[in-house]
């Protein structure tokens, strides 16, 4: 009886276990950032002025993206505030 139940559940359990381990292993490389500096070394040939142009572009782009995220999620922030007020 016990062996029958084990044979019934073990495939499911091993499958779930493999999903779990794969997810655990995948979350470590997902948290690593992409270092774009390693791909932009070629533009060093163009001199310091073009370099400042490129770095300024990336800096402003990152600022724009962060502001964009804040503005897009403004409704969420307001909802959170309302929740705290109600509480």
């Amino acid at each position: 009886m016990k062996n029958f139940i084990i044979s019934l559940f073990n495939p499911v359990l091993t499958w779930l276990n493999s999903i779990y381990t794969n997810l655990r292993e995948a979350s470590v490389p997902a948290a690593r950032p992409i270092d774009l500096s390693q791909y932009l070394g070629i533009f060093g040939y163009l001199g310091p002025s073009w370099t400042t142009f490129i770095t300024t572009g990336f800096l402003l782009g990152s600022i724009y993206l962060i502001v964009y995220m804040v503005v897009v999620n403004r409704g969420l922030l307001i909802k959170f505030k309302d929740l705290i007020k109600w509480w």
Partner: protein
Amino acid sequence: MNFIEKIIAGFQAVLSFLGNIFSNVFDFFGDVFQKLFDIIAKPLQLLFDLLEAIFFFFLKLFEIGVMIIKIFTAFFQYVYALGQGIFRTISSWSHISVSKGTSFPSASGQGFNAVIEILQPTGLMTVVPIVATAFLWLFFVIKILGLLGGDISVSPFKSGGGEK
């Protein structure tokens, strides 16, 4: 003396008689219970096996539930790690460094250097990028202001002024 001994012997006889009776009774009940247990043992064993199987089944179900919960936590960790990676990538754009010397193969490196030397007096390497940087600043300032303003739409590189 003789009389007392007789009385004691009588008591002993009575006691032994009672003892025999009780031992017989106990033996009888012991036999009965033994038979009863022998009869009951088989179905009890079956019942015990059934109960064990049912509880083992529930144990396995519980294990699967725990596994599913663990998978969900791992999934949320994965989503969180993904968001963290994206955020770290975006924040690493704010301090990017281009000056990592790439070494071309010799012939193409010489070609690049020659082209750059030719372009040096035309201002393509100095003046144009500075102007382009200024336009970049202007573009992003207008874009971010438009973003913060909400329904203000600014198009910086159209013929300005008149229409809208």
